[in-house]
């Protein structure tokens, strides 16, 4: 079994960071990369990209639409249409590359920022906005989409994903001869979540039972205001070794590399070879949420440096250079993107206003008498305002 893969196309990119407290921390930026920020293809000795330019173009489309959705939602929050929004700006390659690796029987357990993956799984963006507008709890059919509920208590979903993967094992959907009969689970969380006990416990359970689950860490460098150094003194992917599972770090802004590495990890999980951890090295270009103000804790120079590594631009450059797409293709995508924006802008105001009556029946499979009595008291109280004055 490969326990750790350390191939790298930029081996010189490591440094030692000294924290304000004087602690020296290795900050390696080694990762697997197949497409440079300039749009140049590079080879990796272990991971080859197995798909053609049409697949890369499809990924570009998902990234552009995902970014549009996110940008619209951020703007809607600023206009007061949403209570909150967690932007995914800058993380489109990490999300689309991993989402593109999903197979027919695979399942996704997201945190709360995987908007691009959600769209790829067929979740309606307006359904997603309901949660952030406060018109509903989580209003998509997670079983149909194979995209489970957003999880707002950090890291909790890592355990749910691992348990679900244990279910796949018991259902005989792992390690079959026909690869189409196998499934795995892809669970997303961030660098901050790696400090959570639930994530550590999930890694223990997954390793112990060799469950078919891939832990996908989007290391976007910031957990609200806390830099990665507060969470870990070693690169996150190296934590996997302590759990006895493979750990890999990939350029999270390179959709080709992310797809190749995630396919590798999901394939071996489906074959019954156990879990793996992928650290997608990326950057949260926006705020943690619309309530956050990154100017209080990070420098513009850092943001500018990451802007130069934009995940969308490099793919556009590459595909145009190859002649795989042209300006007409891009114009058509821009039209599709604009149509999505219009649909979101017009649709958000049309989302039905909820009534408290709608929620009584959601607590238990059937309404207990005491709760039914509370509902009746509430309805009678509400109705009392409608009565004609005497």
């Amino acid at each position, binding site marked *: 079994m490969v326990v750790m893969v350390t191939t790298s196309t930029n081996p010189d990119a490591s440094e030692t960071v000294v924290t304000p407290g004087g602690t020296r921390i290795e900050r390696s930026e080694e990762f697997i990369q197949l497409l440079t920020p300039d749009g140049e293809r590079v080879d990796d000795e272990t991971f080859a990209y197995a798909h053609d330019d049409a697949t890369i173009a499809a990924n570009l489309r998902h990234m552009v639409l995902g970014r549009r959705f996110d940008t619209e939602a951020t703007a809607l929050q600023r206009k007061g249409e949403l209570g909150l929004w967690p932007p995914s700006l800058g993380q489109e390659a990490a999300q689309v590359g991993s989402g593109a690796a999903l197979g027919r029987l695979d399942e996704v357990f997201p945190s709360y920022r995987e908007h691009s993956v959600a769209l790829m799984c067929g979740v309606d963006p307006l359904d997603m906005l309901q949660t952030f507008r406060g018109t*509903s*709890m*989580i*209003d998509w*059919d*997670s*079983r149909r989409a194979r995209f*489970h*509920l957003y999880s707002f*208590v950090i890291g*909790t979903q*890592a*355990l*749910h*994903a*691992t*348990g*679900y*993967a*244990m*279910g*796949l*094992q*018991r*259902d005989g959907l792992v390690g079959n001869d026909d690869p189409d009969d196998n499934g795995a689970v892809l669970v997303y969380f961030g660098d901050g979540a790696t400090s959570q*006990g*639930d994530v550590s*416990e*999930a890694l*223990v*359970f997954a390793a*112990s039972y060799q469950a078919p689950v891939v832990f996908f860490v989007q290391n976007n460098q910031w957990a609200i205001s806390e830099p990665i150094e507060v969470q870990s003194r070693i690169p996150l992917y190296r934590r996997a070794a302590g759990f006895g599972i493979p750990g890999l770090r990939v350029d999270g802004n390179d959709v080709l590399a992310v797809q190749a590495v995630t396919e590798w990890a999901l394939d071996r999980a489906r074959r019954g070879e156990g879990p793996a951890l992928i650290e997608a090295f990326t950057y949260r270009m926006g705020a943690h949420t619309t309530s956050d103000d990154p100017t209080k804790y990070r420098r513009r120079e850092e943001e500018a440096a990451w802007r130069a590594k934009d995940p969308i631009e490099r793919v556009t450059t590459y595909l145009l250079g190859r002649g795989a797409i042209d300006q007409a293709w891009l114009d058509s995508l821009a039209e599709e993107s604009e149509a999505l924006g219009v649909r979101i802008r017009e649709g958000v105001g049309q989302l039905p206003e909820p009534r408290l009556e709608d*929620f009584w*029946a*959601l*607590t*238990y*499979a059937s309404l*207990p*008498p*005491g*709760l039914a009595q509370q509902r009746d008291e509430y309805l009678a109280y509400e109705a009392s305002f409608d009565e004609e004055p005497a």
Partner: protein
Amino acid sequence: MTQTMTMAKALNAGLRRALEADPKVLLAGEDIGKLGGVFRITEHLQRDFGPERVVDSPLAESGIVGTSLGLALRGYRPVVEIQFDGFVYPAFDQIVSQVSRMRFRSMGRLSVPMVIRIPYGGGIGAIEHHSESPEAYFAHTPGLVVVSPSTPLDAYWMIQQAIASDDPVIFLEPKRRYHEKGEVDLAEPPLALDAARVVLQGTDATLLTYGPMVKTCVEAAIAAQAEGRSLEVVDLRSLSPLDDAAIRASVEKTGRAIVVHEAVRSGGLGAEIAARIQETSFYSLEAPVLRVAAYDMPYPPSRVEMAYLPDLDRILDAVDRSLSH
């Protein structure tokens, strides 16, 4: 078809029957496999149903509950064993923020048919964290069903009913009663999971209790008979939801209510029950509703636990106070 067995054996038999009846039922917990659990409640079940269905878990309570939630989403009906009451708190977030509200969060699309078995309560001379009564935390949480059997008969049937429930159930097992014997009718369940039972009929006052204190209350009622007092004992069985109709019927008959539990008094089930009684039955009451409970301190060393826990004399003392009105 009736057999005499201990509560421990009744739970084992109930779990066995559930495993036989539904291939989606599986058990998970620490030491529940080869060892059969520290109280032997799952004895021989791994031998007979295999390690995929009777799973020895890593020592991580949040992990046990959280992975079981994932299994439930995949269509399984996990029955989790928390080794001791005091060890359930590491799983508190998974129970209270995840398991309990998955139906609500998913707008009714998902359910979590999970049972969390917790041996609870004191009286066994244990060291700290092994004698707790955490029921109020869970009864305070919408979405959870909280039940506690007091006899082998109820243990045998209630565990099967809990497993069949589509809601998550906190199943509190009074560990000091594990080895007491009783008659178990294996043919059909005597009551629904959410129903209270009048254990002893009486006319002068009602003792409302559950779990380990049912036996203590019955003994107190028998002792009171010698003094010519007729006490009714109601075994609540279900702590959430409460069987309001049964509580009300008994209290309005006797006019006096005393709630008895091992958990500390403040913010306990007794407070909720007393509040409901005065809301519904104020004009039937001859005396204030009283509570006999543990004192508001952490569970003390075992050499003094019998002074800390309610016992027959403290219950009768409360009866005297109630009847003095």
